[in-house]
Each structure stands twice: as structure tokens, then as C-alpha cells.
């Protein structure tokens, strides 16, 4: 379709945008890819498949998985309670859900570590049961779950709000129990939003650094996450290894970005339809 009237400002706005994006986003990422590519395949592979690197992928991915499962359950419960029930303090809780986004990760890191350390408020209690959180993979999971908590709540909440009560009423009139209506009517409608939230939460957990390094203990092979390994290689002036490991994180981020965009587009289509 051709427009007769075109607004002014395209050259300036697009010019500013392209210059900014080129300098701030594309140039550095290009430099990183260039550096990693200059390694040659054999060297690159040797670095990214070294036992310590592979152990860090395992620690990062498993912890992110654990954190996401926790957030799935708690996030869903939180979204449900905020949308469906009215009780004193609801608005406060609704606002507090975003705290993990607003609180700087280093601050979250030292706060969680202090809580879960063996002499901390939670740590000393959990020690009675022989559970150690700080400086174990469990600690990484706690930090990841904290920093990515808002994602699932905030993707599910609007869909739950817009859910048509008639669907539930119809199911109730057909004699369905609450549990079966939730499982067979409500949950399927929430699924696209849940999946979008899960992928955002998982991606964020994979990339988290600040909150984790305080609580993780950072033992190679045990509690060392991939972004920390890249950081350590830098501090050892091993720039090639840092570039290679960072490129693995970059590729993972791109894959997650593609998945997230796909799932969000689907989730949004559902929202619009309903």
C-alpha cells in the first residue's frame, strides 16, 4: 500500500537508531565473534569442549532448569492468587513481584548469600536438616530463581485476567470438578503464556552472573557457572579462551531469543483471540 502523506523525520530517526545500534550492539558482538572465529576450529573446539567448560555448562543448565521449575510452580500460584482472590496486601505483593528486576544483582547476591550461609537466618535453620544451600549448586538455583521470578508471573497474569468466565461456567454446568476444569480447560489456555514465561525465565537464568557468584562458591567442576568461567579466563589474560566461552553463551542466547520470540508470538496470538 502506498501512502500519500509521509511523516517527516525518517532520515534523522533511522540514522540515530542505526548509528547507535551499530556502535553499541553490533560492533562489540561482531568483535567477539571475530575473535572467537580467528581461533580456528580445532583450537576453538578444544576450549569449548574442555572438561571444565563442559562441567560449567552442566552446572549452569541444570541449575537454570531447577530454578525454572520452581518459578513455574510458584509463579503460577502467585499469578493465580493475584488475579483470582482479593485479600489484604494483594497490591503490595503485586508490586513486590518486580523487586528481583529492580534490585541490582550484586545486592541480591550478598543478601541471599547472607540469608543462606550456615550462620544466616535460613542457613542455620536448614543446617538442622543437613541442608546446605550457600556455596552449593542449590545456592546457584536459589539465586537464579530469585532473579528470574517475575517472568512467569508477568506473562501468565494478563492471560489469566482476560480468561472468559463463561468457559469455566460451561465446564461447571457439565459437572466437572475444579481440579479437572483447571487441568482440562484453564491450563490449556494458559499454556502458551506459561511456555513463553518459562523460556524467558530459563534464558535469564542461563545468563545471570551478579547474584550467583556470591552464593555459588565458584568451585571448578562443582559450582562454577559458564559466565564465571569466561570471566576467570579474562582475568588470566587468556583472551582466546574467554572469547570462545563467551561465544558459546552468545550462541545459546540467540537460540533462546529465537525460541522466546516464537513462543511469545504464539502466546500473544492466543491472548488476542480470546
Amino acid at each position, binding site marked *: 500500500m502506498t501512502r500519500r502523506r509521509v*511523516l517527516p*523525520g525518517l532520515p534523522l530517526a533511522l540514522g540515530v*537508531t542505526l548509528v547507535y545500534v551499530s556502535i553499541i550492539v*553490533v560492533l562489540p558482538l561482531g568483535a567477539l565473534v571475530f575473535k572467537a572465529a580467528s581461533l580456528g576450529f580445532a583450537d576453538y573446539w578444544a576450549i569449548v569442549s574442555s572438561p571444565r567448560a563442559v562441567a560449567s555448562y552442566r552446572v549452569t543448565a541444570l541449575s537454570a532448569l531447577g530454578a525454572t521449575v520452581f518459578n513455574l510452580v510458584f509463579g503460577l500460584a502467585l499469578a493465580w492468587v493475584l488475579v483470582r482472590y482479593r485479600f489484604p496486601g494483594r497490591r503490595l505483593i503485586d508490586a513486590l513481584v518486580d523487586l*528481583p528486576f529492580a534490585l541490582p544483582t550484586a545486592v541480591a547476591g550478598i543478601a541471599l548469600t*547472607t540469608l543462606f550461609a550456615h550462620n544466616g537466618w535460613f542457613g542455620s535453620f536448614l543446617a538442622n536438616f543437613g541442608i546446605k544451600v550457600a556455596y552449593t549448586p542449590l545456592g546457584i538455583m536459589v539465586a537464579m530463581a530469585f532473579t528470574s521470578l517475575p517472568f512467569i508471573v508477568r506473562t501468565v497474569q494478563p492471560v489469566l485476567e482476560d480468561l472468559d468466565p463463561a468457559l469455566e461456567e460451561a465446564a461447571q454446568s457439565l459437572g466437572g470438578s475444579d481440579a479437572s476444569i483447571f487441568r482440562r480447560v*484453564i491450563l490449556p489456555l494458559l499454556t502458551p503464556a506459561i511456555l513463553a514465561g518459562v523460556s524467558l525465565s530459563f534464558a535469564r537464568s542461563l545468563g545471570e552472573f551478579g547474584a550467583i557468584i556470591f552464593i555459588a562458591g565458584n568451585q571448578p567442576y562443582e559450582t562454577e557457572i559458564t559466565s564465571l568461567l569466561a570471566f576467570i579466563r579474562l582475568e588470566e589474560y587468556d583472551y582466546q579462551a574467554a572469547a570462545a566461552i563467551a561465544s558459546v553463551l*552468545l550462541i545459546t542466547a540467540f537460540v533462546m531469543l529465537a525460541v522466546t*520470540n516464537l513462543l*511469545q508470538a504464539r502466546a500473544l496470538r492466543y491472548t488476542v483471540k480470546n
Partner: protein
Amino acid sequence: MSATAKIKRPPRVGDNPLFRTILIAVVLVVTALFIVAPLAVIGFHAFSQGWRFYAATIAHPDTLHAIMLTVVTALIAVPINTAFGIAAAWAITKFDFPGRRLLLVVIEIPFSISPIVAGVAYLFVYGLQGLFGEILADADVKILFALPGIVLASMFVTAPFVARELIPLMQAQGRDLEEAATSLGASGWRTFFSVTLPNIRWALLYGVVLCNARVMGEFGAVSVVSGNIRGQTNTLPLHIELLYHDYQTAGAFAAASILALLAVVTLVAKVALERRGAGRRPALAAPVAVLTENAK
């Protein structure tokens, strides 16, 4: 009020009083343990050695310098980022050009990338072993381990913040008002300031508030490019780490309490702006998806 206005609705799924009470209680307890407790522990430890110690920590030259550096970084990065966000939203929502979607994806990239990757990437541009390293060294220009590096890394991690608030809103508002204004003879700037800006001001402010919080709190990317020089390139989050690893726990928490306060202020501002309609969309929905939807 007439009786018909209060027709009792049948109970909805999950309205069973026992289930309801238990679920609310569980959520309240977990929220208290998981969200409120970290906030409380910061306050508790910040003041564990008394007011005097707290004041002394904040007034320490290294802390003051870290606060200054953080504020200066935000004062540079946030306005530039805001201008970029407006320009990007104007270009993407008011015009049709090939590559619009691609541009949106590129703007969103920093959001999904680990801050450490961002820091490492900047090293390979401006570091000695990077693309411009030798040229910069010859010209004696310091970007890394100095303020420019900190600002650049902060701008990377927050690049999408303003744009992602404006794009869905401006897309939904369309182009009719602006086209009417220009057809009546208003200049582009006049159109923007008198027509567009009043419609997007709350969303704009919302993006700026979130962007500012992230710039002031950024840790990973800044810790790679700053070099952690005490009293020189230590931002507030880096200063907290330094104190914490020095076993000055109370000091670390005193410094952290400033950023925690900033977080609380950010949340309050966020709620206030949401009441004015900002941020009302599936949270963090990809603008790409929004564009796709509106195209139909």
C-alpha cells in the same frame, strides 16, 4: 442499590474457601521468605553496627566516589539511551521500510545476552587486544578501565529499555494524529512535542525509570570493563562486592542499602506509572510479536 445488581455469581474454579485460604497462605509465606527477607536482611545488616557506623561507611571517600561514578554514568547513559529509544520507536512505528523486524530483533538482543558476554565483547573492541586497541593506545585515549567503558557497557545492557516500552504503544496509536498535524503545517519537531509526546509520556517515563535502575545496578558487564580500581573506576555495585570480599559485611550492606532503596523507589514509581496506563501489556512481550499482530 437494587437487589438485581448483586446477583450472586456461582463460585468459580478455586473458590473453595479451604483451598483459597491455603493457597493465599502459601503464597504469602513464600513471598515473605523469598522476596521480603532479602530486603529485610539488607536493612538488618546495614544497621547492625549502629547508625554511626552506617553514616561513616556512606561518608567514606571510596563510597562517595562510587556513588558519584554511578550517578555520573546514569546521567550520561540514560539520556542518550532515551534519545535512542525515541528515535528507534519513531522510525519503526511511523514508517514502513525493509528490515524493520530485523532492527527490532537487534535492539532486543542485549536483553537476552549475559552481561559478562557484553563486557567481554567490549574488551575485544577497545581493549589492547581488541579491534581499536592499538589505535586508541597510540592516541592515548582510555576507554576501558575508565568512565567511557563503564558508560558504553551500561548503554549496551539497557539499549532495549526505552524502545521496548514505546514501540508497542506507538504502534497501537498509529500514525493518524501525526499525519493530521503535519498536513496542517506543523513541523516534524512540533508534531513530536505537541502530538506524540503527550500520548507517550508515561510510557517514556516508565522506560526511563527502569533504564536508570538497571544502569545504576549493573554489575557483570561493568565489572569486566571497569578494572575495579578502588576510588577510581568502582561503581556502587562493584564497591559492594569489594567491601563484601574484604569481609566488611556491615559496610557492604550499608552501601547495598542505597541501591536497595533505589530499587524500592523504582518499584513505587513503577506502580504509580502503571496506574497512568504505562507498561500495560503482556510483560516483556517481544515488540516483534506486537508488530506482527498489528500488521494483521
